[in-house]
């Protein structure tokens, strides 16, 4: 019996001699807005207007060291957890409003590889279905250790 893969306990051994990436220098945050949590953001906020929007599962930025540089840069952000958040019907309406009212350019959904995270994609698709305008949707799946497992247009 292995349990729900979304909440199964695991540790990742990091060996000292392993190449750990470039630690030199500092990078500025690429976040250009506040708030970010989906219940808190307003689709009418100016930073969503015609933006490329990233909808990330809560765990994604923690798993991925280069989230800011590789994915957040240049985009508007909102985050949510499809497993734990309540009132997700509001999320669907907000996604539809982002498309129709804020006229966003694209939506990229970033989720963890655990199966329950697929719920966020389902939610995004519901929002797109509800909206009158059509926009391109991209899906990025991230492993527990922060690698990009797939990046596809849906």
């Amino acid at each position, binding site marked *: 019996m292995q349990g*729900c893969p979304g*909440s199964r306990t695991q540790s990742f051994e990091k060996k000292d001699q392993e190449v750990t990436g470039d630690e030199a220098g500092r990078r500025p945050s690429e976040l250009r807005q506040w708030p970010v949590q989906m219940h808190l953001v307003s689709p009418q906020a100016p930073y969503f207007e015609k933006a490329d929007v990233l909808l990330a599962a809560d765990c994604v930025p923690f798993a991925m060291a280069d989230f800011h540089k590789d994915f957040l840069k*240049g985009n508007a952000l909102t985050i949510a957890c499809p497993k734990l958040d309540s009132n997700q019907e509001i999320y669907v309406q907000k996604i539809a409003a982002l498309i129709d009212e804020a006229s966003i350019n*694209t939506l990229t959904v970033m989720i963890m590889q655990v199966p*329950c995270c*697929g719920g966020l994609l389902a939610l995004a698709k519901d929002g797109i279905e509800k909206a009158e305008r059509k*926009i*391109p949707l991209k899906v990025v799946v991230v492993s527990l250790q922060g690698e990009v497992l797939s990046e596809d247009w849906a």
Partner: protein
Amino acid sequence: MQDFLNMSIKEVIEKHPGVGSLLEEYDIGCVPCTVATCLLKDIVTIHNLPKKDEAILMYSIEKEIYPDRDVKLKEVVEEEKKEELGYSPPMQQLVDEHVHIKQMIAYIANVLELVAQDEKIDKDLILDVVRFIREYADKYHHAKEEDILFDYTDKSLEIINVILEDHVTARGHIKAVVDAVETGNKEKIVDHLTAYQSLLTEHIRKEDEILFPWIDRGLTTRQVGEIYQKFAQANQELGENLPERNLDFLESLNSKFQQQHQGGN
């Protein structure tokens, strides 16, 4: 069953512990999950099992919940595994339009057969084919490539020049067909329609297999969104009616030539 599909997995397993064991058989480990608020229907779809396994699992769950019911196992056709090219949405649109243009290219073979057989030239039919090519393949499709998509490439590149030249050559063949219909020159009609067929077949293959994947690799997400909106606007400016009437015409050719073949020709 619908009631159970919309129930949280926690409630379902409380009522029917056997469902938990079934899920575990498919490595869907909801039993020890402390949250377990996912709905049964979502759990099954999200785990994205092979269609056949999903059908068997749903059958077994229903059997577990309603042991006395005559449950039918859903028949599943094995999906064909096709090579995933992963076009971006605007590129996918162009590739989908190619499918219709390729259908027309196939019907041109039937048209050529008719021209060879009949003593009189069916001018209306040939001019209808010309209209499809001018409206759908050229005004609707090639225009999006030339006026929108190629702006996102380096237009001095050889590959773009070759593609643009193909469009010009194709227009020339169609113009020649119209002239030949006017003068009743059968041979010229056949020559230019045949040339159009082979030019466009090769042209579409180049775009689908080489040009579009290559352009896609160079586009940012922002650009993909922009192209998508510009395509939508270009289509809107031409009106919904344009693709509709042309696809209807394709459909009519389909029944025309099918009947003809069934009629023993």
